């Protein structure tokens, strides 16, 4: 759920617009240094993937279902910089189609792209450091990071609310309920993230950015065949 217009006052929204622009700008610089001319197609397709992935409903219980937010998943799969750009672009396009306030775009990008993708990747690397350095640790670390990132993004919202909320709600109550509810959402996010990362690792481990240092990149080698290739020279052509 994205923050709509008018929930946080204008000065705070503007200030977080600056934070979001700085965060995304930094991500663009780092991504360009890393992937050069690949940034646009890969981040674009990743944004389309996150957009589509958010349409897939996972049944939770009692007929309710939830969908993925995708910040940590994108960051682990394509890296924090491309992932943050992709999430920010998804939010921008969604805001242009009335999902999330136009004036609240900076707030939403701060929570979901800066905290969600960049923060999520940081937590992922931390979790990975505590686990054994093997490939199966990667989905576990991704799940842990996703689980922590969701309430963390909710806490980001509470901080914005404390600075510029337009309604008189007790801050402690907002913090408690937002973080509490999002801890539950985080469990779902963690399960989906871990399961998705584990599938990608099972089929194309080389694609998972967060696992690159664990995948042995075998260089191409020439293996001379034991069977001698049939010589075609000097044979008459069929005819």
């Amino acid at each position, binding site marked *: 759920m994205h923050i*709509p217009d008018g929930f946080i006052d204008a000065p705070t929204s503007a200030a977080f617009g600056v934070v979001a622009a700085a965060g995304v700008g930094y991500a663009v610089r780092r991504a360009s240094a890393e992937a*050069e001319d690949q940034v*646009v197609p890969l981040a674009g397709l990743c944004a389309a993937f996150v*957009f589509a992935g958010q349409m*897939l409903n996972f049944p939770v219980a009692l007929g309710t279902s939830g969908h993925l937010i995708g910040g940590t998943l994108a960051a682990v799969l394509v890296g924090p910089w491309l992932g943050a750009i992709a999430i920010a672009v998804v939010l921008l396009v969604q805001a242009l189609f009335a999902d999330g306030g136009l004036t609240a775009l900076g707030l939403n990008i701060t929570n979901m792209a800066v905290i969600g993708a960049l923060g999520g990747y940081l937590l992922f690397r931390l979790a990975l450091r505590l686990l054994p350095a093997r490939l199966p640790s990667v989905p576990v670390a991704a799940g842990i990071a996703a689980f922590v990132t969701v309430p963390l993004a909710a806490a980001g919202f509470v901080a914005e609310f404390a600075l510029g909320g337009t309604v*008189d709600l007790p801050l402690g109550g907002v913090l408690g309920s937002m973080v509490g509810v999002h801890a539950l959402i985080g469990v779902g996010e963690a399960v989906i993230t871990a399961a998705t990362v584990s599938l990608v690792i099972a089929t194309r481990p080389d694609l998972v950015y967060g696992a690159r240092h664990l995948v042995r990149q075998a260089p191409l080698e020439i293996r001379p065949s034991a069977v001698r290739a049939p010589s075609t020279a000097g044979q008459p052509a069929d005819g």
Partner: protein
Amino acid sequence: MSGAHAVAAPVGGIERWRPRASVLTRLPAEVRIAATFGYVVTVVLTPITAVWAFAAHAAVAVAVGALGRVRPLAAARRMLIELPFLAFAVALPFVVAGERTEFLGLTVSRDGLHQAFGLMARATLGVGLVIVLAATTPARELLTGLARLRMPPVIVAVASFMVRYSTLIVDQLHRMSVARAARCHRPRTIASTRVLAAALGSLFIRSYERGERVHLAMLARGYTGQLPEGLPRPPARPADWAVGGLFVTVGAAIALAGWAGAGGGW
């Protein structure tokens, strides 16, 4: 019914609007984006105590929608997107502290009632105005408008890729869900997460590989990291900007009148 649960809509949310020609479509997209943004800012700055000011804003929004020949039903359906948020606003009168008052036979907080109204009014107007923008502007023109408004080229390029390919990828997701349904998969419990996550994983691999293929195809056509400018329309003239400015001025006048009439408030 169970199909609606798991099967994603075959058409993504992006290219759903097919704008009809109207007075609004004559304005370049950059003017419309800037004017919408400016107007939403004036809505956010309108004090919540000035109920009539929000009524005036709503009248302006409806008038603009009518000018843009927006289909009312489609717009109303699109506005359902703010439903979860409205549930939050409805709770406000019961949880905000302060003086109690009677409303529809219930004892609620007077401040909470005001704030819930302000929250709903601002959010609804914001959604409504953006829907008018989205419904009168094809996605491609929105992107051109963003580029003309000096949005960094990388972001515009990534967004244009997303818009172009999300239909394909959403379709792919849909085909995968049809394939699952054909194999008697009915996601009902949390146990089906494994299967759905596998679908998401293969969707990622297919998206990534498509990205690589597209990148190679771009390289083959001489791509060096800069997309060529193929702008479909000439940039806005001063007269266009004047129309946009006038629109925002109307909003600002309503907001100012709201402040004067409300005698402060906040």
